Each structure stands twice: as structure tokens, then as C-alpha cells.
């Protein structure tokens, strides 16, 4: 098992480093494009870690067999926040390039942006980012620490402690994800606002995290201890959860679309006007089909959810669709208000590989540190029984 994880880590690292070198070269040629592609890649992979953190905490609150057998995968993913913090650093130098509100001369000439300046300014932006990372690292640290101590010393008092942390932890998660999504993505177009935006990201992160977990479960499923612990029944449960998150994502996205379309207000409708012309309409349709209709139809049947190869395919495809969704939300470059045509750059694909490779390497490194199943969790026996 360890050899398998090491192998995967190495491959991820090589792919990530290779793509990063390419992107580094690209950054010299076209820094604006680099920052944009890199931001999208970062939001995608940081979102996988965030989704894992949230699902881990959700499971601490609700219990259930599904979460115990994947607990260690979620913990390993949520221990990557020190690395995502490092991955965030390049963006610190990109604020000028990415965000039009960071240009004082633009803000000075625009009444709406002047009004928002107490929130949208570089100092506060960076301070908020520091706060988000502090919260995420803190939550992941304690979750992981107490989970380890539970392994070493027995269930109490850690089981209780984990629950006590997870309730407020989920609150903090909701708060930080909302504002980080506003900061990093929504403010690319500083004139646009939508109250559901943060929830849209939470739904998407749930899809990302479950897609990752299902992928890893299938890839490592031929090896002990997962081989005997995770049965098709567990896989079925995970598939159902993924199915639920896909529907949530579609529900949130459709709500935003219908309400915006129906009201047709000048400050909101440009969001969709820009994204339904100049080639962007194909991305919109691809999202509808690929992020909802197709996986929905496939995951509807029990057969798919229990078929390892098929469910792996769906999960990998959804990880890719997450990238497409964030690409869509980031939208046409914010510089210049007029409609811009879709312009796919090679870095839009290279950057996710770079960030993803490095992130996955960190994830596998963390995964190797602990046994893949918790030893003293009071519910573990039942969870394994559930699958038999």
C-alpha cells in the first residue's frame, strides 16, 4: 500500500513540477494570463481541500458508516492547507493584474467602486486571506491531532472533542468560504454581486471532495487495508452522496440563473449576458450537461454507483467539470466591461495540472503518515459491519 501511495505521489510531483515550469515560462511571456489561469487552478484545488474539511466535520456531527471508512482520506486532504497557503503566495503578486479594484485610478473614477473600497482594497484583501488560512489550518490541525490521539489512546475524550470542534468549525467554514469566494472570484467583476455565491461554492466543494475521495478509494481499493474495509456498499453510499451534491450544485446554480434572468436588472444580467455569447455559451451548455445531466443520469442507477470503474470515470470527469465551473464563474477577463469572446489559453490547462500535481503530492504525503483506518473510533466496527 505504502509503495503504491509513494508511486502516486512521485508521479503527481513530476507532473505538477513539469507543468509548473511551463507555467513559469508562460508567466514571463503573458503574466496576466498566467495569474488568471493560476487563480482558477488554485481555487479548484484549494476547494477540494476545503470540501474535504467540511465533509469531515459534517461526519463528526452526523456519524454514519460512509464517513468512517474515508475519514483518513478527508483528514489527509484537509492537512494540505499549509501547502495551499504556499500555493496562494504567487497570487499575492497578482492582485494588480487580476483585480481591477486594486487600481486606485480606476476606483477613483467609479462611484460604485469608491463605495466598496472599504471592503475591496488590497490590504484588507490580504488580511482576509491570512484570516481564512489561519482558520482552515487551525481547524484541520485540531481535527487531525485529536483523531490521531484517539487512534493512540482510545475513544474518549476525543470523540466528544471532535464533535465540539466540528459544530462551530462548520460555521467558520461557511463564513470563510463565502467571503473567500467573494474575494477571489466574485470580485473579478467588482460590479456584480449575488447572495447565493458562497453557497454555490460550498456545493461545488462538496462535489470536488467526494469526487476526489471516490477516485482515491477506487485507485487504492485493491490494496489492504481498504480492500477488505471498503465494500461495494460503502461505494454505493459515497456515490449517493456525490449524487446529492451534484443535485445541490445544480439547484443553487439554477436558482441564481432563474432569479437573475427573470429580474433582468442592469447590474446583474451582464453576468449571464457575457457568459452566453462569444463562445461562452458552449461552456454554459457543457456545464449543464457535464456537471449535472450526465452524472445525474449515470449515478441514478445502483449499478453505476457500485461499479468501480464506472464510478471512477464519473468522479474523474466531475473533477474536470469543477474546473470548467470555476472557469465559467471567473468568466471573461474583468478588464474592460464589454463582452469578451472565449479565449482558451494553454495555461488554462497547464496551471490546473501544476497546482493539482503539487497538491496531490502533498495529499499523498499526508495520507502516508497515518493508518488508513482509524483504530479506536467507537463507531468503526459498526461501519465495517455495514459493508458486509
Amino acid at each position, binding site marked *: 500500500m505504502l509503495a503504491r501511495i509513494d508511486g502516486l505521489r512521485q508521479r503527481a510531483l513530476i507532473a505538477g513540477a513539469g507543468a509548473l515550469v511551463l507555467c513559469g515560462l508562460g508567466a514571463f511571456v503573458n503574466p496576466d494570463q498566467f495569474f488568471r489561469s493560476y487563480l482558477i487552478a488554485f481555487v479548484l484545488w484549494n476547494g477540494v481541500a476545503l470540501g474535504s474539511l467540511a465533509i469531515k466535520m459534517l461526519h463528526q456531527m452526523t456519524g454514519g458508516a460512509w464517513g468512517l471508512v474515508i475519514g483518513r482520506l478527508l483528514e489527509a486532504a484537509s492537512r494540505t492547507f499549509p501547502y495551499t497557503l504556499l500555493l496562494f503566495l504567487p497570487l499575492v503578486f497578482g492582485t494588480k493584474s487580476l483585480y481591477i479594484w486594486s487600481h486606485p485610478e480606476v476606483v477613483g473614477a467609479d462611484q460604485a467602486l469608491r463605495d466598496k473600497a472599504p471592503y475591496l482594497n488590497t490590504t484588507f484583501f490580504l488580511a482576509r486571506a491570512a484570516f481564512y488560512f489561519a482558520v482552515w489550518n487551525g481547524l484541520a490541525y485540531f481535527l487531525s491531532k485529536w483523531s490521531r490521539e484517539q487512534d493512540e489512546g482510545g475513544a474518549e475524550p476525543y470523540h466528544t472533542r471532535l464533535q465540539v470542534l466540528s459544530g462551530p468549525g462548520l460555521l467558520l467554514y461557511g463564513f470563510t468560504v463565502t467571503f473567500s469566494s467573494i474575494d477571489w472570484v466574485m470580485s473579478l467583476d467588482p460590479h456584480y*454581486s449575488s*447572495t447565493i455565491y458562497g453557497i454555490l461554492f460550498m456545493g461545488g466543494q462538496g462535489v470536488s471532495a467526494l469526487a476526489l475521495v471516490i477516485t482515491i478509494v477506487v485507485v487504492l481499493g485493491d490494496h489492504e487495508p481498504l480492500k477488505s474495509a471498503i465494500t461495494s456498499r460503502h461505494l454505493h453510499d459515497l456515490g449517493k452522496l456525490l449524487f446529492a451534491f451534484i443535485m445541490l450544485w445544480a439547484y443553487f446554480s439554477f*436558482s441564481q440563473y*432563474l432569479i437573475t434572468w*427573470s429580474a433582468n436588472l442592469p447590474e446583474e444580467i451582464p453576468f449571464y449576458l457575457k457568459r452566453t455569447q462569444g463562445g461562452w455559451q458552449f461552456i454554459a451548455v457543457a456545464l449543464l450537461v457535464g456537471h449535472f445531466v450526465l452524472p445525474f443520469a449515470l449515478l441514478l442507477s445502483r449499478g453505476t454507483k457500485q461499479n468501480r470503474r464506472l464510478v471512477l470515470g464519473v468522479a474523474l470527469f466531475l473533477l474536470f467539470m469543477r474546473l470548467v465551473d470555476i472557469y465559467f464563474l471567473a468568466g471573461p477577463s474583468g478588464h474592460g466591461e464589454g463582452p469578451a469572446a472565449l479565449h482558451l489559453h494553454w495555461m488554462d490547462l497547464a496551471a490546473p495540472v501544476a497546482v493539482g500535481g503539487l497538491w496531490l503530492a502533498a495529499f499523498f504525503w499526508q495520507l502516508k503518515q497515518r493508518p488508513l483506518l482509524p483504530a479506536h473510533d467507537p463507531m468503526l466496527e*459498526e461501519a465495517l459491519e455495514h459493508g458486509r
Partner: protein
Amino acid sequence: MEPDQTQIEPLTLGEQRRAELVGPGHSFATVTDKISSIVLTRKTTLGFLGAFTVAFGLAMMLFYTLAYVVVVGVGAFGVNVPVGWGFDIINFVWWIGIGHAGTLISAILLLLRQQWRTSINRFAEAMTLFAVACAALYPIMHTGRPWLAIYWLFPYPNTMGLWPQFRSPLIWDVFAVSTYATVSALFWFVGLIPDLATLRDRATARFARFAYGMLAMGWRGSAMHWHRYETASLLLAGLATPLVVSVHTIVSFDFAVSVLPGWHATIFPPYFVAGAIYSGFAMVMTLAIPLRVVYGLEDFITLRHLQNMAKIILATGLIVAYGYMMEAFTAWYSGNEYERFMILNRLKGPYAVMYWALIACNVIAPQILWFGKLRRNVALLFAMSLVVNVGMWLERYVIIVTSLHRDFLPSSWGLYSGSKWDWSMYIGTIGLFLTLLFLFIRFLPMISIFEMRTILPQAEVKEEGQ
């Protein structure tokens, strides 16, 4: 979370949790006796008659109001320019929201295999039906000529080529709510059939045997019957699950698709659904706590049930609070002066008292539920559930009235308050709701007998054989 109470034999945590769902010492026979005796042998007490009389009196007040409104016209209500939507829609949304907990308990918790739903699902489903009935009265009555409501509301082919406006969520409401009522009624009735057969077999009075026998539809409890029953309830649960979300989503669209500050917000669908479940669970608790005391059902509706409901109330309450926060933040962030004014008007305008009362009821009060000790204090939970019911009513009041009474044009501003007929209709529907509930408790088993038997420890062996 729970301290170990019994350390006689080591139970796993899951077994402990399940053991807390039913009081100790029960067998299949005692469960059946206990629940069916409430309907069949228990004497109708003076207390019951007294409470029923009050509820029935209020229901009579409702019928008087309805007659008055039909005779005099909808001018009896307090709505006028600029506030054209008042108590009718406030109370419609309030009642519809309350119904959602019943559907969530019966459908979603069934699919999630949550055993604690068992003792509360029956009366929660009944609550849903009665709440939907109360809710439906408002849109029907507000048409002024309710006998023509079907003609106006339902699309049907006609020579004039006249159709309802299909782009309006108000017409989607007609479909959503009627579907919801149908599926809820079916679900409730199908779930009752095995218990009706039990009552048929146990009733001694001739008429009761006949009536329960008719309603039991020939249930004999054969393996084939059970097989079909299980399939039907899973299918109905699958059908009802989207309804938990869709009904209140469409109710939220009634507001959100408009261009009015305070109504037009993309967060409305999930935030309304969460609010509906929040108020619904509060109502389940408001009903469950007196019921378990009066009928001695503490063994079936245990502290574990109340705690679980308290947790759901806390979680959904926090989502609702998140909605308030995002509304306020985005109103500021949008930079739109009308949006900003809307929030300031809520905070400081003529309805500020209601807004702050709503924040106190919906955001601050439920925070006590973080603490396990307080979650086990039944009296406190009861008070909390009442506070949440009030808070959710205030929420709809604030959303509807504050956005309408001051619109874009200061010359058209005005104030609104419900007329005495508005109030008598509102209080009257509470009377109708309680009347139906009293009748339900008196004539039907308020807890599912056969499902309770399946969560007894004795039933555990059979479960594993599956």
C-alpha cells in the same frame, strides 16, 4: 456526547443511541397496547373536551371570517396601495413552511435510514396535512370568489385562448402545493394502513371495527402485503423528497423573481427551504412536548428525539441567520442605493421593532441549543420552539411588508397593518389546525405502532437476517 448511563454490558455507541430511542422494558405487545389504547380504550377526558372546545371555537371564528369576507369582499383585509400583499401571503408562507418538517421526517429521514424518525413521523405528517390545508385557504380566499378559484388558477383548454401566466411563480405555486398536498396525503394514508388494521382487530365497538376495517383496505399482514407496502413507501419517499425542496423554493420565487429590494435575492431558495424546515421542526416540538406529557409517551418520544430535533433546529436556524447576514452584506456590497436603503429601513424604519424581534427570536434564542444540558431541558425546549414559531412569522412579515411599504418612489410610501379580519382569519386557522389535530389524536394512532416495534431491541435479530 452522552455520558454512559448503563455500563452493564458493553454496547457500541450506535447501539446505545438506538437504545435511547425507546424506554426500557418494552415488548411488541406493550408498544401496541400503549399506542392503540389511546384511541380505543382511553376515556375522553374533560381536559381534552375543554381544549377541543377552545380550538373548535376558534375554527368557528375562522368560518365566520370566511363567510364575512365572501359576503363583504376582500376589502375586509388590510391590504391597500402600496402594501398589496399582506396577511394572506404571510400566513400562507408560514403554514406551508411548517408543513415541511413532516415531509422531511417522513421522506428524507426514511431514505437516510434515521431510526429516530419512527415515533414522530406519524403526527408530523398529520401536522403537514393540516398545515397545508390552512395554508391553502389563504390564496383561495384572497381571490375573493373562491368558487371561481379553480377557473382562474388551473390552466385548461378553452375557446377564448386564455391561459394563466406560466412565467409567474404564483401559478407554479398552484402546481407545487397541490402536488405536495396529494403526495403528503397519500404517504400519510399508506403509512396508516397496517395500523388501521391493528385497530380494526382490536376495536370492540361495532362501528369502530367497521370504520377501521374499511380504511384498512383489507390488510391482512401477509408477506406479500408487507413487500408491497415497503416498495410503496420507498417510492413515495422518493417522490416526496424533491417536494421538501421544491415547494418552498417556488414560494421563494414568488418574491425573488421580482425586482424589489429585499425580495430579489438569489439566496432566497435555499434560505426559504431552511427556514421552512426550521419552523416546521419548531412546530413538531411544540406539539410533541405536550403530547408526550399528556399521553404518557415519554418512552416513545424520548429525550433523544427532542435533542435530535433541537440539533436540526439549531442547524437550520444557523442557515437562516446566514441568509440574513448575506442579505445585509450584499445590500451594502452591491452599492445599489435602493438595496442599501431597504436594509437601513428594516433596521431603523417603522417596522424596526419587528425586525429586531425577529433577530432575537430566530438568531439569538436558538443559540442556547449549542449546550447539551439545555437541550435536555424539556420546558426550555418548549419555550424555545414557541419563540421560533413567532420568529418565523415575523420573518415573513418583515420580508413582505418592509419591501412593499417604501418602494422606489417616496411619494408612494405608506404603512400597513392587518385588519381585525386578518387577525381573526389567522387565529382562526390556528384553531382549525388544532381542531384537526385533536380529532386525529382521538381517532388515529398518533405514533406508528408497527414501526415502533421494529426499533425495539427484540427486532434487531431480524434486521441482520436481511
